């Protein structure tokens, strides 16, 4: 290295007392155009005493006093020596040093010499002369890549006799304006001076700031070197900063095997320089086959090296230089070594979308020998051999496997890829290629708000969460109007910020929107292995509107008409025709909704029949575009009906009378009883009841009972007709029951028989027989009560056509009940048929019923008993005779006849 060759130098010239005389004056005599042009490579400065003879070195035919021999460089140094050193100690106290520049490329060194008359002349000598004696320095100057600093680097050469002395270096420079660039010399005082930074090892760096605007100007300079008390002045040198730019070495050197199996050497270059760079790439390949070195110059920041081999190592270095015009090569980048594996997969990893087709290539090296591609077999996850039909032989060494129509990879534990192995017949190397197949079918759904100013799009990343290190981005492209028939990914797209919601969906908001523009959207999955795009969808905001719900929703049961009327106002937007849905039901915790749909966009209300006019209904309305595009709005806030009187009561209440007779006064007190009218009859409330009386003597009159359900009056005449009317806010009941109390009719008996059959404790069947009559039978009234008790009389109305009736009540079995059936004629109340208990027929029937049950039970029990006895008899017989010994086997019984009776026994 340039710097490494510096060594300490402080030995000799302590006694040299240097005086610089007339330096600037000498410069005046130096032609400007003789300034040494700084070269892109290193050059040297050599100085030697003027009494050194070098005549012998002059080539034949060249005069010693040739002036300005080749128009190059010249300089003179005058030194005053008042001390001596090892080498220069013999020099006189006043020695003139001649300095010149030379380089390895041009070893001619032009020397400025001062003759007696003070006239300057230039002599060119071979630099070897100076190398033998004098002081020497290596110099390199360049413009830094940032184009702000000009640097000159000076180092003392090893042979320098002054090397061990204190070294001070100054650079004097002047930056000439472009217009001044003429052979005329600059003024003496126009030079600026910078002190150079010298390190302990006698290396110095001089920094000259250069304004950006003056990069094309000429920088004229010379060096003033003080070493050991001796001052050396270099000849002038010149440079245009822009022509000596030295870039920084390239960075980020990287090697990889490409998808096509080449070795790609890539690097990045500092981008400060305003011109294009060229690069020199120096690489060597060390493989089992051969050792290869190459050196290529390229303008791109990468280089492809074909035919990469497994098990090889590659050493690479890169440097850069200005492509056009002059410049200085940068230093070499740091050496990078890349070693290929014994099995090379290219590409080593693939990220792809489900449904796609991909291929892997492989070169297999086995024990220093590359396996023939024909012998290569492929395995998946070391578990499944890939069919040979999917192999291809690319060349002698490269095998290829293709996977058509891939399915998404199912993660196995933490492994989210399929491992693809390239094997040498039965032997597989442990290295594998990785195959990541992602299902990119991500559904994007959008919804435009009811104000038509915001479109919200949602999508779920759940399908691709398994791919670690990936990030997802919604990208979109807006076309001015509508969508194309087949949405496609546009090369120009914008990303959209989306925010993860609690439900795991991402939400992206477009606001404001272009209502009729087509927004083509897709999800881009970015990963270090590449990027994938989900299938694009195109959405027109106008087509995905979710309107605001209808407003001002009202519900009522219409008076006199009796329909559920619902009215609403359509939302302000959209301006398209809308359809509506109404849902309604009886209010409660769980409303059983009924639906009704309105397809007429102009309608603002609907009337619906409902079964119960006196109930509270809850109603909601929602809307959607009539053409079916977009979404249903939310349901409106619920509206409730209010129960009011809709019509006059359908009928008056059913009523009955209880007569208490005072035999002494021949007066009868009649108490009318009626049941309160229910809502479905009263429609929907009863404000009061009115009893309408009619007698032949007093005519007709009304008696207001208010809310009471009982009225007592005196029955004095032969016949007294009454009617009970129910009154609500609309009016009086239209259909009412009429009851005539007539003394003559009360003796008319048409009920021949009445029977009561109890079914259970809550129901009794009553049946009756009628005899023919000329009277106009309207209905029956059935009375019942517990016999012999002053209990409440219960009653009910039975239509005249009925012959049998189920009476539901809580009947106590041990009690006896009295049932009375009154025929009610138009002319009056007839004679009742009264029974005081359940009829005998009923008891007989009951007994018969008992008999029907008991007899079969007895018969069954008898049969069962007989059977049991029979079986028991057999068992007993068997048990008994088993204990009797067999006489043939018993010693003591042998010879006895058991069938013969003996007197002993």
């Amino acid at each position, binding site marked *: 290295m340039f710097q490494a060759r510096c060594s300490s130098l402080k030995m000799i010239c302590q006694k040299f007392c240097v005086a610089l005389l007339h330096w600037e004056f000498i410069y005046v005599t130096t032609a400007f155009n003789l300034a040494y042009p700084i070269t892109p490579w290193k050059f040297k400065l050599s100085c030697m005493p003027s009494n050194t003879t070098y005549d012998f070195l002059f080539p034949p035919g060249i005069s010693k006093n040739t002036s300005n021999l080749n128009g190059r460089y010249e300089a003179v140094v005058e030194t005053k020596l008042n001390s001596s050193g090892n080498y220069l100690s013999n020099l006189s106290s006043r020695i003139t040093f001649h300095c010149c520049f030379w380089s390895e490329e041009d070893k001619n060194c032009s020397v400025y010499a001062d003759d007696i008359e003070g006239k300057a002349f230039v002599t060119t000598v071979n630099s070897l002369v100076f190398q033998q004696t004098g002081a020497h320095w290596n110099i390199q100057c360049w413009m830094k890549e940032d184009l702000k600093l000009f640097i000159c680097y000076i180092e003392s050469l090893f042979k320098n006799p002054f090397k061990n002395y204190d070294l001070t270096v100054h650079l004097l420079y002047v930056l000439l304006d472009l217009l001044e660039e003429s052979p005329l010399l600059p003024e003496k005082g126009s030079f600026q001076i910078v002190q150079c930074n010298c390190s302990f090892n006698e290396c110095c760096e001089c920094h000259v700031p250069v304004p950006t605007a003056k990069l094309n100007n000429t920088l004229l300079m010379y060096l003033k070197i003080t070493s050991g008390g001796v001052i050396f002045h270099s000849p002038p040198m010149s440079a245009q900063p822009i022509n000596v730019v030295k870039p920084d070495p390239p960075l980020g050197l990287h090697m990889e095997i490409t998808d096509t199996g080449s070795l790609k050497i890539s690097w990045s270059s500092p981008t400060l320089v305003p011109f294009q760079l060229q690069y020199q790439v120096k690489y060597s390949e060390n493989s089992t086959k051969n050792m290869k070195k190459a050196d290529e110059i390229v303008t791109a920041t990468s280089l492809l090296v074909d035919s990469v081999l497994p098990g090889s190592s590659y050493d690479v270095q890169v440097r850069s230089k200005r492509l056009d015009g002059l410049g200085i090569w940068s230093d070499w980048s740091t050496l990078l070594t890349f070693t290929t594996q014994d099995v090379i997969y290219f590409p080593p990893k693939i990220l792809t979308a489900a449904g796609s087709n991909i291929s892997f290539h492989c070169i297999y090296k086995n024990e220093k020998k590359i396996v023939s591609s024909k012998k290569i077999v492929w395995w998946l996850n070391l578990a499944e051999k890939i069919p040979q039909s999917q192999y291809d032989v690319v060349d002698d060494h490269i095998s290829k496997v293709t996977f058509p129509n891939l399915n998404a990879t199912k993660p196995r534990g933490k492994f989210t890829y399929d491992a693809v192995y390239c094997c040498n017949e039965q032997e597989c190397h442990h290295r594998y290629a990785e195959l990541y197949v992602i299902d990119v079918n991500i559904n994007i759904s959008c919804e435009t708000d009811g104000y*038509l*100013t915001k479109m919200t799009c949602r999508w779920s990343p759940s399908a691709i969460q398994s791919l670690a290190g990936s990030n997802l981005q919604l990208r979109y492209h807006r076309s*001015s*109007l*509508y969508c194309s028939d087949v949405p496609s990914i546009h090369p120009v797209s914008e990303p959209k910020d989306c925010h993860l919601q609690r439900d795991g969906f991402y939400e992206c908001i477009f606001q*404001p*929107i*272009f*209502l*009729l*523009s087509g927004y083509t959207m897709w999800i881009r999955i970015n990963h270090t292995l590449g990027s994938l795009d989900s299938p694009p969808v195109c959405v027109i905001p*106008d087509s995905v509107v979710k309107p605001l719900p209808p407003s001002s929703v009202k519900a009522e049961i219409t008076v006199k008409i009796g329909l559920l009327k619902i009215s609403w106002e359509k939302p*302000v*937007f*959209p*301006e*398209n025709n809308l359809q509506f849905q109404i849902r309604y039901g009886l209010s409660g915790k769980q409303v059983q909704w009924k639906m009704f749909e309105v397809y007429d966009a102009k309608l603002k209300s609907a009337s619906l029949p409902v079964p119960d006019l006196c109930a509270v209904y809850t109603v909601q309305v929602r809307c959607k575009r009539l053409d079916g595009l977009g979404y249903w709005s939310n349901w409106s806030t619920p509206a409730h009906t209010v129960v009011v009187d809709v019509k006059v009561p359908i009928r008056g209440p059913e009523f009955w009378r209880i007569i208490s007779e005072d035999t002494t006064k021949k007066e009868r007190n009649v108490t009318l009883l009626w049941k309160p009218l229910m809502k479905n009859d009263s429609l929907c409330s009863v404000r009061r009841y009115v009893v309408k009386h009619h007698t032949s003597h007093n005519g007709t009159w009304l008696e207001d009972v208010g809310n009471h359900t009982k009225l007592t009056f005196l029955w004095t005449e032969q016949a007294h007709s009454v009617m009970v009317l129910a009154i609500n806010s609309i009016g009086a009941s239209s259909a009412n029951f009429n009851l005539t109390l007539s003394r003559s009719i009360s003796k008319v008996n048409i009920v021949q028989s009445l029977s009561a059959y109890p079914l259970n404790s809550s129901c009794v069947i009553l049946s009756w027989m009628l005899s023919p009559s000329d009277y106009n039978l309207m209905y029956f009234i059935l009375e019942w009560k517990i016999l012999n008790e002053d209990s409440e009389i219960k009653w009910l109305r039975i239509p005249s056509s009925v012959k049998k009736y189920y009476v539901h009540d809580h009947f106590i079995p041990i009690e006896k009940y009295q049932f009375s059936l009154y025929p009610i004629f138009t002319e009056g109340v007839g004679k009742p048929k009264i029974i005081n208990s359940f009829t005998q027929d009923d008891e007989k029937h009951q007994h018969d019923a008992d008999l029907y049950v008991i007899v079969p039970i007895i018969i069954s029990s008898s049969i069962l008993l007989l059977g049991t006895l029979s079986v028991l008899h057999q068992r007993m017989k068997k048990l008994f005779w088993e204990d009797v010994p067999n006489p043939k086997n018993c010693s003591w019984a042998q010879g006895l006849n058991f069938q013969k009776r003996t007197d002993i026994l």
Partner: protein
Amino acid sequence: MVPIRKVQDDTKTLIKTIVTRINDISHTQSVSSKQRVTGLDFIPGLHPLLSLSKMDQTLAIYQQILASLPSRNVIQISNDLENLRDLLHLLAASKSCPLPQVRALESLESLGVVLEASLYSTEVVALSRLQGSLQDMLRQLDLSPGC
């Protein structure tokens, strides 16, 4: 290919939408139609008979004015106007009408000065006149306007 009938329907609906949007901007509702505001001649007035190209030109001017207004709610209207102009271009294309490119609006050079001094007036008058123009256009579209 979008049926021309749909383009016509969308054009009318979009005009109605913009009219309603302007209605919803509260401070434009209180502007009296009886008062005439002077000094805002660069804002187009009402033209009962409009051709498609004239409609486009008028909308372009309004678009430029709205773009200069700072109110947030006019941005959406400005977007709507862009869509509306695109629709007019489609309608014109369906009739084989050449729609000339709208020239640079010289008259609007003074817009910046006016806006600085009379922002409120400019906004309410522009929106009010735009609403009127749109209603004219809506009527005109029913009459099948010429090129």
